[in-house]
């Protein structure tokens, strides 16, 4: 239950709800579009149309899509189509956060999603793409020149999506962040399929990668073990295995992996590591985040932080 707050900043800009009467008062704001609670249907579409027609739209760099349907979980396809249709106007856009939806607004594992390929293909200069909600989510071929940062947050990531990332051609991607989730909520990958996302299926996969986040995973112990002697650790600065159920098993695997010392930062926030292993990891000499350790709970009470 982690998405308890809406975004206050996105891609370096302050986030504010778009006001359909006022329009764009400051193009340096990342405006958010979300359903007008108890308001009219298709409000998001209507507000986006207004946004696109605003004379200041050409100066806008980022925007955010929030909860797109009120009570009934509609697919965001009409929004994606609208944006893709207006691609000529959208070429200056640097970042989109599609799905700034809190736990209160909708359960992450219940968000009905769809393929975002049409939008990603339409915006080759886009640099940051963040999307939340894994049901039905796909990203398409992911042959994208501009993309530097890709964040995919799910309660459970499907193996088809993992396969898309494994086959991606993202020459400028520095930041790959996948919230893998739990099997109960749709995670259907294997540890090999997760590894394939950063190893790739062809040579020179994600050549610019600097940050690798395999977060919110219930198989993070296996991922930690699989990272042994992985060449990815020679070239990234940050490894983020936070918000999962990392236990002493994973802690030991990381400790016994000499390549871990190449990292500048290791994020293990929210974990189930014992005091002993936490101490050993701290002695590795890598900047490490071990906050939110859950040491008291019995195994049955362990949970993935974001799942439901």
């Amino acid at each position, binding site marked *: *239950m982690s998405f*308890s707050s809406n975004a206050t900043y996105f891609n370096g800009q302050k986030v504010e709800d778009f006001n359909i009467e006022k329009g764009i008062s400051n193009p340096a704001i990342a405006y958010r579009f*979300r359903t007008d609670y108890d308001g009219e249907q298709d409000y998001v579409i209507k507000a986006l149309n207004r946004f696109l027609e605003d004379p200041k739209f050409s100066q806008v760099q980022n925007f955010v899509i929030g909860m797109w349907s009120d009570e*009934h979980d509609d697919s965001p396809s009409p929004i994606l189509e609208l944006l893709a249709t207006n691609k000529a106007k959208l070429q200056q856009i640097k970042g989109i956060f599609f799905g700034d939806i*809190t736990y*209160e607004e909708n*359960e992450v594992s219940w968000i009905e999603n769809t393929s975002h390929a049409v939008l990603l293909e339409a915006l080759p200069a886009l640099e940051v793409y963040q999307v939340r909600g894994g049901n039905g989510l796909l990203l398409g071929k992911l042959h994208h020149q501009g993309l530097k940062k890709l964040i995919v947050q799910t309660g459970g990531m499907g193996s088809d999506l993992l396969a898309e990332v494994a086959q991606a051609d993202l020459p400028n991607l520095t930041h790959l962040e996948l919230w893998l989730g739990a099997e109960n909520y749709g995670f259907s990958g294997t540890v090999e399929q997760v590894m394939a996302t950063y190893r790739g299926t062809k040579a020179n996969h994600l050549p610019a990668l600097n940050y690798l986040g395999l977060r919110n995973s219930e198989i993070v112990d296996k991922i930690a073990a699989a990272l042994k002697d992985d060449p990815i650790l020679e070239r990234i600065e940050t490894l983020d295995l936070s918000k999962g159920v990392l236990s002493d098993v994973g802690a030991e695997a990381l400790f016994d992996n000499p390549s871990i010392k190449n990292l500048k930062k290791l994020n293990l926030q929210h974990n189930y590591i014992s005091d002993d292993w936490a101490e050993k990891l701290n002695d590795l000499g890598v900047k490490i985040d071990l906050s939110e350790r859950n040491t008291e709970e019995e195994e049955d009470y362990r949970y993935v932080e974001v799942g439901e």
Partner: protein
Amino acid sequence: MQFTIIANPENRRCQYFVEAVHAAGLPPVQVVSYVDVLNNQVDWDTILTNTDSLRIESFGENFEVWRKLVLRGNRIEPDLSQQITAEHEIKSLVFEQGRIQYSKQLYQGYQHWLQDLQQKLDAYPAVQVMNSPKSIALMFDKMACHQHFSNHQISVVPALPRVVNYTDLRQQMTAKGWNRVFVKLNYGSSASGVLALRVNGDKIQATTSVELIKTLHGVKLYNSLQVKQYTNESDIALIIDILAQEDLIVEKWIPKATSEDGIFDLRIVVIDGKPDYTVVRQSQLPMTNLHLGNKRGTAKAIQELIGIEKWQSLHDLATQAVQTLPNTLYAGVDVLLSSNYKQQYVLETNAFGDLLPHVLRDDLDTYQATVKAAIARWKANQ
């Protein structure tokens, strides 16, 4: 000027009031204990003759008082055989921390006693009550209070008409097209018997402080400090069916505005028409009650976030809500701002909601402020 309080004398609420009156330089408070009241061991004539201002305090946190009120409420039950069975059960109950039961009987018993008290007060028009029995009874009954506010054009969260059980709840939700609701015990408090329920197709999820315990002898419900999640429809239906026997209020679950520390709402204590005391309740969970491990936020941070105008209008709403209540000097009002900041609603109003120790305004805590207001009211009438 002589203050009288009806309270559980051992409770900190009573002590705070006694101290506040003492600090105002007034004669010691006349303390009338609920146990004595319910045992008919109180000489009302002497007490009310010698009272200028009366505070009716919470009866909570005392098992004997609870049992007596429940018994009193049970005697209102029209089915005599059921009444006798329940009476036997109630008398043999032992205290179980957090057990949820008999909340309707408790309300009925208390409401019945409040009516009694009002009759006695009618003979002593010079006695000023800080909060009238009628007002306390109204605030205690969430459905009645919701209706009252609706009638007075106070913005309240949309609610379903009476819901009798889980099947009825689902049918009413479907009819309204609602996927998310809060199910609450109609006479509950402190998030007791509250479920944040959402459904989507065949999926269902209830986030709640209710703990369901199934034993060979039946099913029991408890208030748990650890908020739980149920995804099994039969368990959720079981909980709701049990709670529904004690009456429910079902409200639309409006997503609340969020700060960086999660969702928030405001507990605003209105005293003598002024919304001077505000606590920001923040949570990572749908329930913001502070005893569930949630944090107080700072007013400043929220003012900066939502802007002073929205902050002010939330306080105006709380003040207006209390103004509509019959003879009410103070009340704790919970107000929410929707996630897009567009709507604001009164969630509920609590007659005993002024327990905010250590929160000061002009060097006065809430108890001192209510005493000050009562003194002013009394003087104005002399």
